[in-house]
């Protein structure tokens, strides 16, 4: 009953948020309703748009799964963007370095493992500060995002600079050899192995939360640290493990993006929402109330809005930043869903 009310409320809030944000279109001389219709048409309406939306889900889905693990325990890893960048740096380096000396399967596996470790490592200092000194992890994880962006910028204009420029006037690393790239499953689209992997992670997350002790304990912590401790949960250890998984998965998202989509390290513009998967992952996870199936749907929805907004920018010269505001409004309404959930179910120990 409560569950149904929550889902209905959430759906209602999302509709309100999308309608409210469509008012922004009128700033550019397009009636809100027309704008809304074209947004969905450009995002989902044609086979090509649909394919890019599905392909674009991959980094969002992986990222949202990674963020949801600590979010369940109310540990807020806002640094997914930085962990994503570190994961893409590490995996590109591995790919370029070992391409000639090892078989492709080994290189890809090595890139996967090292991007996981790199992303997890990037989160270690902030999370230890949170757990042992109570320092707000939102601030520190966010600061690490900026550091990663400048690190990337230095690498692709310095030590990792590519000989041939991919895009004119834009620095980048050397491209990965084509045989290392994930094969596309649907010819002519970017739907490939990355999507399979992302869906696999969502299923793994479902099992983690539903059937493992760690998942159960994280949910207890999320409902109240004091009560969880009273119930015998090793709060610090669980928070640390959840965070390492989170940073690691965010790093892997960076690897999948390199090996599955771009094939090359490109500069990260901090304010560019279209490549800020670490930030967009936050509303994707929250709007779904951290539910694995919900996350798949919201990743699809968010990816569609992004694809749609690209179309709107091309067709009507509407800035892509509309998307950021839409995401914000959707996320703003997500806490209300949380509220219904947490106030009705009191933990009994």
């Amino acid at each position, binding site marked *: 009953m409560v569950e149904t009310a929550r889902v209905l409320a959430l759906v209602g809030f999302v509709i309100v948020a999308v309608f409210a944000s469509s008012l922004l279109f009128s700033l550019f001389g397009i009636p809100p309703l027309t704008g809304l219709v074209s947004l969905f048409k450009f995002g989902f309406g044609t086979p090509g748009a649909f394919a890019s939306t599905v392909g674009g889900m991959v980094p969002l889905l992986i990222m949202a799964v990674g963020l949801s693990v600590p979010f369940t325990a109310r540990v807020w890893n806002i640094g997914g963007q930085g962990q994503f960048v570190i994961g893409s740096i590490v995996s590109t380096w591995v790919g370029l370095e070992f391409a000639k000396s090892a078989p492709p399967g080994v290189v890809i596996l090595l890139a996967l493992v090292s991007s996981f470790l790199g992303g997890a490592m990037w989160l270690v200092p902030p999370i230890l500060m949170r757990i042992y000194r109570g320092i707000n992890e939102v601030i*520190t994880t966010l600061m690490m995002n900026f*550091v990663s962006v400048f690190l990337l910028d*230095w690498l692709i204009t310095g030590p990792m600079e590519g000989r041939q420029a991919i895009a004119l006037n834009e620095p980048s690393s050397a491209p990965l050899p084509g045989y290392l790239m994930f094969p596309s499953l649907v010819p002519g689209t970017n739907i490939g192995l990355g999507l399979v992997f992302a869906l696999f992670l969502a299923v793994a997350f479902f099992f983690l939360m539903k059937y493992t002790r760690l998942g159960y304990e994280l949910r207890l912590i999320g409902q109240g640290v004091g009560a969880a401790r009273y119930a015998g949960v090793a709060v610090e250890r669980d928070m640390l493990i959840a965070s390492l998984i989170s940073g690691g998965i965010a790093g892997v998202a960076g690897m999948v993006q390199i090996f599955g989509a771009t094939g090359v390290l490109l500069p990260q513009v901090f304010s560019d929402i279209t490549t800020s998967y670490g930030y967009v992952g936050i509303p994707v996870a929250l709007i779904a109330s951290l539910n694995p199936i919900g996350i798949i749907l919201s990743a699809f929805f968010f990816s569609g809005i992004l694809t749609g907004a690209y179309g709107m920018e091309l067709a009507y010269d509407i800035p892509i930043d509309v998307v950021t505001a839409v995401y*914000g409004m959707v996320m703003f309404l997500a*806490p209300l869903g949380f509220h219904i959930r947490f106030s009705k179910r009191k933990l009994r120990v």
Partner: protein
Amino acid sequence: MLPRALPIIAAATGELVDQSAGILNLGVEGIMLIGTIVGFFTDFYTGSLLLAFLFAGVAGTLLALLHAVASISLRADQVVSGTAIWFIGWGLSGVAYRALFGNYLVPPTIAALPHLQLPVLTSIPIIGPILFGQDPAAYFILLMIVLTHYFLFHTQTGLNLRTVGEDPRTAEEMGVNPIRYRYAATMFGGFMAGIGGAYLTIAVTGTFYYDLTAGLGFIAVALIYFGKWKPLRTLVGCLVYGAVYVLFLTIQTHFLMIPYQFFAMWPYLAIVVILAAVAAKSGGPASLAKPYEKGA
């Protein structure tokens, strides 16, 4: 050094009052961004500095009101709501800029703020320009943080507000309405963050570009931790931050062989290191970020 520090000082002043009442608003970053565009736009079209700061403050207050409704009345998680506010401010400021100035080929700029010029006093070497050569908004922001110190620690209302942040139940038993105090504090926080954002475009950059604040709002929150929720200690933190920022800019021009990215990343790393070294586990308002339910 001071111009760099002032936007942070303004935002930190508001956030400090906010947090003292028990409300954590991580949306300061987004509110500052709204302040940058509203302040810039108003100054550009009206030429009135007073209106520019006022409108930026009011816009900030409105955005903070959203956070207040979610976190006080609806008792939503304040981290989630604050992050949402950040996204809304981030997106809206970019959209607003394109809608308002999109047809300009060259980014428009506004004239710099007039600086105070006093006979004799301003011409005293070094301290003259620092003490007597600032713009009016700078004096306003500095006055606000000093007044905030007085308000929080030397008035009954300030004591009530801090009690709300420590223990809203006790406050209510004393006859203080925690909900009302928290709303007022959150809206004041939004007003000051808006002012801080406006100062950034009007006095520091003179123009607007995307995501202009680049984490300044979060740095303001971090410096409150450094200041242990005391306005004057926070002020010192902001000033030192501004000074070191300028120092690094100066050093950078002398060491061109070191890639600029290392200079650019230090302010963010420094915040992490400072927090690790200084912030204590306890010290903040006891009920910070905890929703209050009447009579529960």
